[in-house]
C-alpha cells in the first residue's frame, strides 16, 4: 500500500511541490488560478489576521488618542484636549525615570543570567543520553508551565521574614541573618524578583538555544576535535558562531518579555521600596487611579520603548527575526 502511494507521489510531485520550496513564484499565465488561490488564502488566514489587529492595533491607537486628553474616570465631564501635556507630566516625573531605570536593570540582569544558565541547560540536554533527556526536559518544563503568580508566591514565601526559611538556612552567609527583611530594601527585593523571573523563564530560552545547538553541524565540531581544539576553543570557534542567529533571537524575545515584567513585582512588593516597574506604573495610573489620559501616555511610552529595543536589535545587532523563525 505504502509503496503504491510513494509511486503515485512521484507523478504528482511536480504539481504538489508548488506549495513548498523554491517553486513558489506564481507564473503569470495561471493568473486565474493564482487569483483564486489568493482569495482562498485570505479567506482562510483573514479571520486570524483581523482578530490580531482588532485586539492590538485598535487599542494602541485608542491609547494614543486618549493620551492627548485630560481624562479621569473619577471626573469624566472634565475631559478636555491637552495636546502633549500628559507626556510632559510623565516625562517630568522622576518616578517615571526611576521605573524605566529599574525595568531596564531587571531586563539586563535577567537576560544575562538566563543566557548563561539557559545555554548550560541546553548543552546538558543536547549531550544527555536519551533516557536522561526525557527526565531533564520534563523537569525544566515545570517552571515553564507554572503560573508566574504561583512562582512569585513560592519565592516570596521562601524569603519572607515571617514564613520563610531562607534566613535560617543561610544565616551563616555574611549579611543574612534571622531578621533580614528581604522585601524592605530595593536591592534585596530586586534579588528575589529576579530570582523568580529567572527560574520561571530560563526553560524557554534554553529550549530556543537547544534548537540552535541542533543546527550546528556535528562534523565541523568533530573535525575541530580531531585537530586538537580544546572544549573551550570548539565552543568559541565552532558552536557559538554557528548558532549566533538562535542566540540573538532568544535574547531579543526574552529581553522584550522581561521589559514587560509585572506579575512578580505586583505579588512580591507591589512596587514598594523603589521596585516600581513601567508596567506597574501604567497599571496603577490607569486602573488604580483611573487617570486614563496619563495612563495612556505611559502605555504609549512603554510601547515606544519596546519598538526602540526591537529597532536597536534589528539595526545594530542585525537580528534576523524572520529568517531565524523560518520565514525566508
Amino acid at each position, binding site marked *: 500500500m505504502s509503496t503504491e502511494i*510513494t509511486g*503515485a*507521489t512521484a507523478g*504528482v510531485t511536480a*504539481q*504538489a511541490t508548488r506549495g*513548498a520550496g523554491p517553486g513558489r513564484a*506564481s507564473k503569470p499565465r495561471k493568473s486565474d488560478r493564482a487569483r483564486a*488561490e*489568493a482569495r*482562498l*488564502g*485570505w479567506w*482562510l488566514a483573514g479571520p*486570524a*489576521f483581523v*482578530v490580531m489587529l482588532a485586539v492590538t492595533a485598535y487599542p494602541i491607537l*485608542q*491609547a494614543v488618542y486618549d493620551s492627548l486628553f485630560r481624562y479621569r*474616570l473619577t471626573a469624566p465631564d472634565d475631559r478636555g484636549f491637552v495636546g502633549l501635556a500628559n507626556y510632559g507630566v510623565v516625562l517630568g516625573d522622576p518616578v517615571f525615570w526611576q521605573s524605566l531605570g529599574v525595568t531596564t536593570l531587571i531586563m539586563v540582569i535577567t537576560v544575562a543570567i538566563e543566557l548563561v544558565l539557559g545555554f548550560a*541547560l541546553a548543552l546538558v540536554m543536547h*549531550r*544527555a*543520553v536519551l533516557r536522561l533527556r*526525557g527526565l531533564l*526536559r*520534563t*523537569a525544566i518544563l*515545570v517552571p515553564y*508551565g507554572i*503560573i*508566574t*503568580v*504561583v512562582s512569585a*508566591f*513560592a*519565592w516570596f*514565601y521562601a524569603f519572607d521574614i515571617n*514564613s520563610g526559611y531562607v*534566613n535560617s538556612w543561610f544565616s551563616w552567609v555574611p549579611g543574612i541573618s534571622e531578621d533580614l527583611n528581604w522585601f524592605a530594601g530595593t536591592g534585596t527585593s530586586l534579588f528575589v524578583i529576579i530570582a523568580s523571573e529567572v*527560574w520561571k523563564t530560563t526553560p524557554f530560552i534554553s*529550549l*530556543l538555544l*537547544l534548537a*540552535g545547538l*541542533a543546527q550546528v553541524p556535528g562534523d565541523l565540531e568533530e573535525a575541530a576535535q580531531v585537530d586538537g581544539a580544546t572544549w573551550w576553543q570548539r565552543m568559541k570557534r565552532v558552536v557559538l558562531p554557528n548558532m549566533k542567529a538562535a542566540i540573538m533571537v532568544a535574547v531579543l524575545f526574552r529581553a522584550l518579555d522581561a521589559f514587560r515584567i*509585572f506579575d512578580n513585582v*505586583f505579588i512580591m512588593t507591589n512596587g514598594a521600596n523603589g521596585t516600581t516597574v513601567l*508596567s506597574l506604573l*501604567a*497599571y496603577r495610573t*490607569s*486602573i488604580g487611579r483611573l487617570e486614563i489620559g496619563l*495612563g495612556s501616555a505611559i*502605555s504609549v511610552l*512603554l510601547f515606544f520603548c519596546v519598538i526602540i529595543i526591537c529597532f536597536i536589535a534589528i539595526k545594530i545587532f542585525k537580528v534576523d527575526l*524572520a529568517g531565524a*523563525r*523560518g*520565514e525566508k
Partner: protein
Amino acid sequence: MGATKALTGRQKIAWAAITLVVLVWALFPVLSILATSFKLPSDLNTGNFLPTSWSWTNYEQILGPDGSAQELFLSSLRNSIGISLIATAISSVLATLAAYAIARLDFPGRKLILTTALGVSIFPVISIVTPLFNLWRSIGLYDTWPGLIIPYLSLTLPISIWTLTAFFRQIPWELEQAAQVDGATTWQAFRKAIVPLAAPGVFTTALIAFFIAWNDFVYGISLTSTEAARPVPAALAFFSGASQFEDPTGAISAAAVVVTIPVVVLVLLFQRQIVSGLTQGAVKG
C-alpha cells in the same frame, strides 16, 4: 553524541550529579510551596522548610464546603478553566486555518500575516489594557468571560500561527494527491492522509496556547472585578485569611498547588510534544 560510546563509571557519576542539580533547580520552588501548603497557621513562622505536622486545613479552606476561601477559589477555578479553554479553542481554529493557508497556498500577504503575528507577540500587554478597560466598561464587557477571551487571543494567536505554520510546512502534502490518485475522494484523502499528520501539531499548539492563557495575570486583574470572571492568578492576589487577622499564606499556597497539578500532569504526559512545539515555532532547522 554521548550515546555512541558507552559511558565510563566517572561519566555516569558526573551525569547523575548534573541531573540531580537540574532536578533540584527546577522543582525546588514547587516543593517549597507544596510544603508550605501543608503547614498549620501556627507552624508558618518557625523558619523550617517542612511542616512539623502535616495538615489538610489549608485545602479544606479552599475546597471544603465550609472553607472561608472556597467560594472565591472555586469560582476563579471555573473561570480560569472555561476562559482558557474557549480562548485556546478559538485561537486553535483560527490559527489552523491561517497556518494551512500560509504553508500551502501561494498568496500575497503570507509574509504580512507572519510579521503581524510577530509584532503582536512582542506587544506590551499593559499598553492595551488601559483602552480595553475603558472600552469594556462602556460596552458592558468589563468583568465578563468574553471580556477576557477576546484579549487572550492577542496572547495565544501569534504563537499558534507561528508554531502551526512550522508544523504544516513539514507535512508531505503530496500524500493527499497520492491518495486521490489511488481512488480516495477529496474528503477521504484529507481525513486519512492529512489529518493524522496535522493533528499532533494542532494538539501541541493548543497545549502551548492553553499554558499561556492559564498564566495570564495582567488582563485578569485589570478587566475583572468580581467572581463573575476573575481567573485564578488574579484571585490569588485577592485572597484573605480566615479572619482579617490571619495571613492568607496557607490558603494561597494550597490554591497554588491545586492549579499547578494540571500543569505538572500535562508536562509529564506531553513533554516531547511541548518541546518540539516550542522549538519548531522558534528556530526552524
